[in-house]
């Protein structure tokens, strides 16, 4: 069903600009995470530096989206689906900014790892990265296409990422005991794993916000609510 345009054309333009900035921010965040991972796997300090530098542009976009969102609330006083889209866009930008911070942290940890001999345990990180990025892309797709089913499907996938992180953590702690000379390296990999686990958490938040924007349903903290 095609959503009719607003009588106020400027309202449509403002909403479209807000949405485009969110999607652009998502694209930049995805690129930043890819670069950080590439810097880690390829032991490339230059790519790590680029990933760290990307963060500035993403931070500026977060501020721009917040400003545009507040302007829309002030000028057009949106309600119903328009209000939900604006609120979701502002929350998305906050999650994307935190994801970009994770990319920066991964890149910084990668640079530290690059100063020492390579560790075969980097391979433990790869499946986590693939899973986290898959969740991230699907959550942003769900928001962009207002696909409630896809958004709902993202949320339970976070459990697998938590499990992967836990297993990787155990193995890395074991390796620390076996090979204490590489203790710092293993510790850095544990931090990288934790960053990717956080990326999954933010992807989950984005999926939840996508459901709210499209269906006006708050699916956050449902497990906790049931257990209370």
């Amino acid at each position, binding site marked *: 069903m095609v959503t009719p*345009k*607003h*009588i106020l054309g400027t309202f449509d333009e403002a909403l479209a600009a807000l949405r485009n900035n969110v999607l652009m921010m998502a694209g930049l965040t995805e690129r930043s995470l890819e670069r950080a991972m590439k810097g880690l796997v390829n032991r490339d300090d230059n790519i790590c530096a680029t990933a760290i530098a990307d963060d500035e542009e993403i931070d500026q976009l977060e501020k721009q989206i917040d400003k545009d969102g507040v302007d829309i609330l002030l000028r057009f006083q949106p309600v119903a689906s328009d209000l939900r889209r604006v609120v979701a866009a502002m929350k998305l930008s906050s999650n994307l900014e935190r994801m970009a911070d994770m990319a920066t942290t991964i890149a910084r940890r990668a640079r530290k790892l690059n100063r020492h001999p390579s560790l075969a345990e980097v391979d433990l990180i790869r499946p986590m990265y693939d899973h986290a990025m898959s969740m991230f892309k699907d959550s942003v797709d769900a928001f962009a296409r207002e696909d409630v089913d896809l958004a709902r499907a993202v949320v339970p996938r976070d459990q697998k990422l938590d499990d992967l992180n836990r297993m990787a953590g155990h193995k890395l702690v074991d390796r620390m005991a076996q090979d204490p000379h590489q203790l710092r390296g293993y510790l850095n990999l544990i931090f990288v794993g934790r960053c990717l686990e956080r990326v999954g958490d933010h992807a989950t938040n984005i999926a939840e916000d996508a459901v709210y924007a499209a269906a*006006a349903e708050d699916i956050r903290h449902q497990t906790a609510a049931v257990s209370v």
Partner: protein
Amino acid sequence: MENLVMETTERSVMERAEQPPAPPLHAEAPMACTFQVKNLSIWYGEKRAIDDVTLDIASNGVTAIIGPSGCGKSTFIRALNRMHELVPKTRVEGQVLLQGEDLYSNTVDPAIVRRRVGMVFQKSNPFPTMTIGENVIVGLRLNGVRNQRFLDERLEKSLRMAALWDEVKDDLRKPGTSLSGGQQQRLCIARALAVEPEVILMDEPCSALDPIATAKIEELIYELKTKYTIVTVTHNMQQAGRISDYTAFFYLGRLIEFGPTTKIFTNPSEKQTEDYITGRFG
């Protein structure tokens, strides 16, 4: 004899002043609803202005009626105290129950209905030849009340409830029209309150007021809803969102959607409602 009639009327008004609103006359009417509108249709000549509307209006709450011009909002609100009958060639089908009592029953006097269901209009309309004080108690005088002490007490009480007493207590003998637009509207609300209605209908009460006067009226509506059932027509979506507990959306004389205001303004069930409140209509 005339004095006896007046005293009887006065006593009944004074007694009503001490009593809470009458309970529903029919057992099936839930206490929580002041109005039950059932399959209401209204014609002006050949034109059908209201089309088969069924709606319960909650007691001690604010119900906002929204919709584009010509959708039947004002006709609907006027039907709640039979004010629309002032227009010639009006015809009504269906029922409007006030506390379970059918307002359109042959035995019901429209004047009594309008005393129980007060109305405030878009444009403030104090009687130009009357003082501020006279404007407030004119309804009581028309009902035969002559006890000056009672009238004085009701005057002050009504003006206080309308949040106007402190501003006019020293000017009660000045013309009602000497007040500002916002004060005049609160004077009209005080006039409606003076006869102790059960319901107050408001037809775009703030549309001619500045933001400060509007805020005062909205604050007043918020305070009055603890004692009265309020039904208000508004074109201002933000105002409907701020002041009302329930919202009804009308289009082409039909009730499209009715529900809690928070639901209507965050997740309406009907596409027509969504299109209207988000400004996509037309």
